[in-house]
């Protein structure tokens, strides 16, 4: 009887497409909003994730997220290095000097100062130039989006100079750094250069980047550093989740996205549910005839579920395709770079749509179950 169920579903083209579109639209909205939300949240920790040379970030005990830093004492670096299990520990500076081009265009920046000797923490994904050239005097690496912000409409070019808080700097590389939460240019320089760009303050050390010795779990080492130094030590993964958690707790972003996602779910459920219910109602006489002929309730339930599942699956596939196309196009844009549709969200939305399909079919199943087969004689 499966082919009977499918023929019933697809015979009324307008209703069938309406039903599939309802599922597809709902899927698209859910995937779109959830992926953008996940992408924005991931951006809060993108500069942490970009550092692949270290396992652990050591910071002031009251630091809650990447942008919020309180300078450590220079002696803290030595204290961290003294903890058993540390392979190496290096300094990281983070400041926000203003970059100004010769043409007068300016912007606040995220300037990261990496260890002078090892260059631990520089971006590994370079689009132009080389991070090794940071060893040159007054050199910087800037990310592509930052470059385009400071030099709009101009081709990427090395050797250009700009001012960082009135200190001249030369661009020796253009990186593909992950997009930050706010659209500041990401600038990398050596620690000694970066602190000069920022201007002298009593303490400049924002983070200590630590690599655990082979065989030692970063989580264990982080706890040991905290115990030994009284500082806060987080693994890369822990720190990223700290950043995400901070923004979830302290901004309206999750509420706004949550509302949109809930509305998408409700609209999808309501529109798909109503369309499928109407479809069932209009086919009630046919179901009644089948019941009178001797088709069991179990078989009829199977037919209704198959109809809902088929429409739901096709709608989900179409919606996923639409969302994938959307993100493929958006990922080419500078402002929305790095926002992708993760497979986990595809799976979550798939599960949500399965629930929607099940709920939608339940209402119709109930109507078919209570249908009196004798009604076909009336």
């Amino acid at each position, binding site marked *: *009887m499966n*082919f*009977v169920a499918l*023929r*019933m579903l*697809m*015979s009324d083209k307008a209703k069938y497409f309406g039903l599939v579109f309802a599922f597809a639209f709902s899927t698209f909205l859910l995937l779109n909003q959830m992926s953008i939300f996940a992408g924005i949240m991931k951006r809060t920790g993108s500069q942490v994730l970009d550092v692949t040379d270290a396992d652990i970030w050591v910071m002031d005990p009251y630091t809650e997220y990447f942008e919020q830093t309180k300078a450590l004492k220079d002696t803290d670096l030595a204290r961290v290095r003294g903890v058993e299990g540390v392979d190496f520990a290096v300094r990281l500076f983070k400041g926000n000097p203003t970059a100004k081009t010769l043409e007068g265009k300016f912007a606040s920046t995220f300037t990261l100062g990496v260890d002078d000797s090892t260059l631990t923490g520089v971006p590994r994904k370079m689009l132009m130039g080389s991070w090794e050239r940071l060893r040159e005097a007054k050199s910087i690496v800037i990310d592509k989006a930052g470059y385009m912000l400071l030099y709009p409409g101009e081709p990427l070019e090395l050797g250009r100079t700009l001012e960082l808080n009135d200190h001249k700097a030369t661009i020796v590389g253009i990186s593909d750094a992950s997009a930050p939460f706010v659209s500041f240019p990401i600038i990398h320089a050596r620690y000694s250069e970066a602190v000069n760009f920022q201007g002298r303050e009593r303490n400049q050390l924002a983070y200590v980047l630590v690599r655990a010795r082979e065989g030692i779990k970063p989580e264990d080492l982080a706890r040991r550093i905290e115990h030994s130094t009284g500082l806060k030590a987080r693994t890369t993964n822990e720190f990223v989740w700290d950043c995400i958690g901070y923004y979830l707790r302290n901004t309206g972003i999750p509420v706004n996205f949550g509302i949109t996602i809930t509305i998408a779910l409700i609209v999808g459920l309501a529109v798909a549910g109503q369309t499928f219910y109407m479809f069932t109602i209009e086919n009630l*006489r*046919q179901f*009644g*005839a*089948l019941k*009178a*002929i*001797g*088709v*069991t309730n179990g*078989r009829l339930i199977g037919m209704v579920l198959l109809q809902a599942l088929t429409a739901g699956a096709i709608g989900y596939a179409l919606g996923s395709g639409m969302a994938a196309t959307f993100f493929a196009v958006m990922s080419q844009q500078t402002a929305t770079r790095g926002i992708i549709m993760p497979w986990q969200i595809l799976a979550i939305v798939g599960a949500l749509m399965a629930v929607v399909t099940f709920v939608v079919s339940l209402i119709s199943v109930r109507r078919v179950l209570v249908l*009196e*087969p*004798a009604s*076909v*004689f*009336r």
Partner: protein
Amino acid sequence: MKTNDHAVRCDGIMKHFGDGEARVDVLRGVQFEARLGEMSFLVGPSGCGKTTLISVIAGLLDPNGGTMQVLGHEPAQMKSADRIVFRRRNLGFVFQQYNLLPSLTAAENAAVPLLADGVSRDVAVKKATAMLDRLGLGHRAKALPRQLSGGQQQRVALARALVHEPRLIICDEPTAALDQQSGEAVMGLLASAAVAPDRAVVVVTHDNRVFHYADTIAHMNDGLIDRIDRN
């Protein structure tokens, strides 16, 4: 072709709907018989209880009183699941409004009782096409219901009622939606294809133009059979 065996025997069947002041007694102790090898007509004015009676005979409604045997079984005593299987295998239906599935071809519509009984699609459609052939509609086996005339649709419904070789055919106003010529053709086919020594046909109808096909005519009025004529 006539035998004395009873396909249906109703004794004092009662059926009411609603309770209290809203209670309506539709069947008030019906005595009715349909014999194997015969075509039994059930006639009477609208609202007299004809449709309720065939619904009870078909096991689609439970009677509130009386006893009934259908093909030697008592549907009222059967479990619900057994009654469905009994109905699927032993009863064929022809409805006033045909009740064909608009998305299925004539052959697929006629094959539905076999499909419902778990017969494979290929075998079921092949058997249904053969039945349509027998009813003179083989050349339209692949047509959709909307491409068929009313008479042709009712022939498809007849093929659906016969394809699984049931022993009792129940027809509800089979000619009501047809013109005289088509109605005659359908009744002629019903008489020739459906009536057999081991099979009975019960027809509910208003259409006195086709009364001559009946072996017996039970006249029903106000929930009771008040006269039986034999042709």
